[in-house]
């Protein structure tokens, strides 16, 4: 089973990202589960979301404490919370950050300027699908085709098209 933890801020679409990832993996033929950290946080507050992906039905129902992957939608969060909490030896972390992440940690960290892509291609700082594109290439956990399909289903029309393009761009950078 693969466990993914998302860190973001309320309103940034972390929960949607966790669900899109689950739905895309489902299209790839996997069993999936995704859920938010159940809180009362409002726009701007740090939030978490979780996705589990497996080849067999997923029966466990508690939060993810030792993630295989951590996706950080906003590098500013790193000053506020420990996004590396529960990281295992082989845990990989992907951070949306303008410059290369320079912190000293024991796990591999991949940096992507998702905000740059978002501002460039979407005209607003919405990075949740973009970071998934990068994640798809880096980890091969989910296929880019399924991901694009789900993004278009989730955001119908032009918004979906633009998001899909931006996600593909990030995929190519992975």
């Amino acid at each position: 089973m693969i466990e993914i933890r998302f860190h973001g801020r309320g309103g940034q679409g972390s929960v949607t990202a966790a669900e899109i990832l689950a739905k895309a993996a489902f299209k790839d033929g996997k069993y999936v589960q995704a859920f938010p950290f159940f809180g009362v946080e409002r726009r701007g507050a740090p939030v978490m979301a979780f996705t589990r992906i497996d080849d067999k039905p997923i029966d466990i129902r508690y939060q993810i404490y030792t993630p295989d992957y951590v996706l950080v939608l906003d590098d500013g969060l790193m000053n506020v919370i420990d996004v590396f909490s529960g990281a295992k030896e082989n845990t990989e972390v992907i951070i949306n950050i303008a410059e290369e992440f320079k912190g000293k940690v024991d796990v591999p960290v991949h940096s992507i300027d998702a905000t740059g892509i978002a501002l460039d291609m979407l005209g607003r700082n919405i990075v949740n699908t973009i970071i998934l594109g990068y994640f798809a290439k880096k980890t091969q956990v989910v296929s880019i085709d399924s991901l694009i399909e789900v993004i278009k289903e989730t955001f119908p029309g032009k918004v979906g098209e633009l998001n899909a393009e931006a996600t593909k761009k990030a995929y190519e950078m992975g």
Partner: protein
Amino acid sequence: MKKEVMTANKAVAEAVKLCKPQVIPVYPITPQTTISEYLAQFVADEEIDAKYVKVESEHSAMSAAVGASGAGVRVFTATSSQGLMLMHEIIFAAAGMRTPIVLADANRAISSPLNIWNDQQDSIAQRDSGWLQIYVENAQEALDTTIMAFKISENEKVLLPSMVCLDGFILTHTVEPVEIPEQSKVDEFLPPYNPKHSYLDPNEPMSVGTLADPDYYLEARHSMQVAMENSLEVIEETCKEFAEKFGREYGLVDPYKCEDADIIFVAMGSVCSTLRVMVDELRAKGEKVGLLKVRAYRPFPVKAIDEIVKNCEKLAVIDKNVTFGIGGALFTDIKAKIHKDAYGFIVGLGGRDITPESILEVYEKTKNPEKEVTWIGLKEE
């Protein structure tokens, strides 16, 4: 048939759509709210031909539900926690008036202190109301049980309302794959509601919701007891019919590896998923352990439980609720009706995460008991 990834709330809404209720009075409350939103959208898009009554409170939601059901149509509503508390008075009226309403309760803790997270105190607080209560473990079971609930409640041997209890957030806000049955098959399974005991037709006037004095009240309540007893069989029949039609099997209780178990976990709702995994893990270590998932809490399936636990040594009863001064509700019922060495564990109140470690603690404390009722994960003062 299609399979989609969705929350249990969406699954319930899809089930409701398939069951074609004609009146849906509902009021939003976390974590039920998205059910009311999906249903509003279905009505707005004419996917269901129903009156969606945008009531001003849960008390009015249940009141309108009873009015509509009393008038002879199929009715669905949903709520959670404080909403169910506000409905409490009319919850009893709904059962007494024998309205086969189906309500989905997104299980959530009760104030005070205010807490929006999951436990099952809200529905447990309604257990003496005369409603059937079925606790579900996942989104698929939420969908399937909602469909079955209408059929069970509308059965003439029952005619009591049903509460489908799904754990708030853990199910209501978690997406997972769900199979949506075909409309035609649901139509075959669940024929239109044809009320004989209560409807409001000027051509055939009847008085509904009357006053019963001491000469009649006792009998009226007794008939509810009989209906509740009947419902045991009706639930089993309905589950069987459902399995034949849709291929998914459910019962009053669902046992897992109980045949040779020394210790059996007894629990309700979503925690059963994690428990099943823990049963496998413990068995891998040579521990003879099983899981008894109680789906039907009211009626309380004494015989079904007895049959499954008859050879085990001990029961570890897990409650996400507390009856202060005695223990968890499921535990006290088990103690009263099942003659086994049973230990009660209060877990997960107010959304406290139930981890594998907490379950191992339950197991350990059943194996080597110190006291009858233990609160798991309690922080030191």
